[in-house]
């Protein structure tokens, strides 16, 4: 076991391999507040990569309704429970946030530190039944009806939210650590985690030990598969973007415009290199508006979420760590620059590497929860990897409300 630095935990932690940070890291931000669970992302992924025989239950991208839904069912609570069993009552955060530890310090056990003998990371193998219903309990804020015995199930009064999930292409992937064949690797050029289909022998240790349950076993080929981050697109080999890195299919199709994906430069110690004009870095580190999913697992996930602000904070703190209050405050009353950067979501499918905000006129001022919020019609310009202008979007958008006589006309 090596000691590696995990900036999301604010401390060193044990990992099977020495840290070898990639030059760039694949990363994405999902704005949960805007997701409508249309599953266009899920279908775009499936129709591109997992439409074949043997892949029927395989959804590299899924959108599940929390708190009841899950693919596989109960994936997160089961892993949280295993960690709790290994370290009862110890899963706590302490300290204050700083540059090296933006969420404070995690004092509890990670999946690596809670591992049992013979495991690199604590985990379990989901049953076939748990994989079989990818969209179970969609839109279920409540348990609907009393059982015949007269037992009433608990109700969640009208709160639920959609959690969009793909492989996190973690900085310290549990699947990589778990594989007895060393068949899984993290690419040095973009941090994308891939399973070598030739080396894999289907032992399913990755399925067992990835806490996010994103590697999946394919019974007809008898090897495991996982999200490949649409690497041909990210490499720029799709003719559409003329050699420039392009966002994945699940990002590009999002009708709710909740997704932004890019590549983040990485320091030699694994921390994100300070690039305040990279839109992802800006929202993750400068504004601290987007947070990793279950950072306490310790894998260093690289998909970040703008948390839903109608959900009880205690639930969100468990899911996204102690940065939740700051993230919601930053999103509720976004800074002038953040208002502009949020407009870059789905403005281009060629990856935006940097942005510039051109000031516009103040259009209005409103009060949000007792504090003024000024809205300026600024223009945000997104630049590609070569520094050429890709896209130009204004803060104030044209609005169109479908006339009442044409409602539900499709």
């Amino acid at each position, binding site marked *: 076991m090596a000691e590696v630095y995990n900036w999301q935990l604010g401390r060193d932690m044990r990992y099977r391999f020495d840290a070898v940070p990639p030059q760039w890291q694949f990363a994405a931000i999902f704005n949960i507040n805007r997701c409508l669970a249309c599953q266009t992302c899920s279908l775009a992924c499936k129709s591109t990569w997992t439409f074949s025989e043997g892949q029927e239950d395989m959804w590299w991208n899924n959108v599940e309704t929390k708190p009841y839904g899950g693919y596989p069912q109960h994936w997160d609570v089961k892993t949280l429970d295993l960690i709790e069993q290994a370290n009862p009552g110890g899963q706590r955060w302490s300290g204050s946030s700083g540059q090296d530890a933006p969420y404070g310090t995690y004092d509890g056990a990670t999946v690596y530190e809670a591992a049992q003998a013979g495991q690199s990371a604590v985990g379990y193998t989901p049953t076939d039944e748990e994989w079989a219903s990818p969209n179970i309990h969609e839109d279920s804020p409540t*348990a609907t009806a009393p059982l015949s015995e007269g037992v009433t199930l608990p109700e*969640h009064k009208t709160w639920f939210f959609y959690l969009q999930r793909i492989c996190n292409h973690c900085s310290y992937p549990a699947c990589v650590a778990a594989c007895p064949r060393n068949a899984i690797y993290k690419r040095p050029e973009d941090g994308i985690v891939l399973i070598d289909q030739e080396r894999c022998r289907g032992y399913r240790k990755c399925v067992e030990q990835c806490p996010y349950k994103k590697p999946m076993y394919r019974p007809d080929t008898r090897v495991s598969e996982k999200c490949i981050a649409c690497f041909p697109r990210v490499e720029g080999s799709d003719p559409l973007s003329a050699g420039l890195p392009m966002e994945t299919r699940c990002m590009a199709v999002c009708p709710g415009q909740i997704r932004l994906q890019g590549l983040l430069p990485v320091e030699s110690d694994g921390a994100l290199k300070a690039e305040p004009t990279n839109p992802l870095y800006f929202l993750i580190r400068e504004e601290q508006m987007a947070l990793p999913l279950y950072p306490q697992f310790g894998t260093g996930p690289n998909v970040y979420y703008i948390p839903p602000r109608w959900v009880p904070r205690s639930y969100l703190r468990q899911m996204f760590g102690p940065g939740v209050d700051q993230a919601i405050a930053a999103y509720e009353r976004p800074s002038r620059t953040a208002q502009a950067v949020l407009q870059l979501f789905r403005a281009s499918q060629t990856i935006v590497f940097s942005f510039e905000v051109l000031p516009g006129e103040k259009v209005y001022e409103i009060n949000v929860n007792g504090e003024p919020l000024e809205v300026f019609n600024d223009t945000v310009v997104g630049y590609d990897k070569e520094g050429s202008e890709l896209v130009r979007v204004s803060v104030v958008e044209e609005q169109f409300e479908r006339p009442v006589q044409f409602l539900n006309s499709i």
Partner: protein
Amino acid sequence: MSWQPVSTPKRRTVSSGRLKAAEATDPYVASAVELTTPGHDGTAAMARTFVEEFARIGWSRDRIRRMFRQPRFSAAYAVFQTRGDEFVTEIIDEVLGPEPNTEPDGENQSG
């Protein structure tokens, strides 16, 4: 053969799976542990979110209030239906403040 009136077929009752009564033996029935979140009013939190979102894109206070009364904005309308106009007004005042500021007119759109 002379014309014979045809009786209207009986309407069949089609029951949606979602609306059937839950059964304890159904492995997919929602069975979950209650998350205790004392003091959290989910409806108010959702309503607050609607107000913030639409205010940020320039809708006026009155237009937002009208939105809550329109069935086609189903989630906002559900808040209005379950909690009433006074509750909606309170939420709007809570988020945007009781007195109008320099607000957008928001009236150049339909609705």
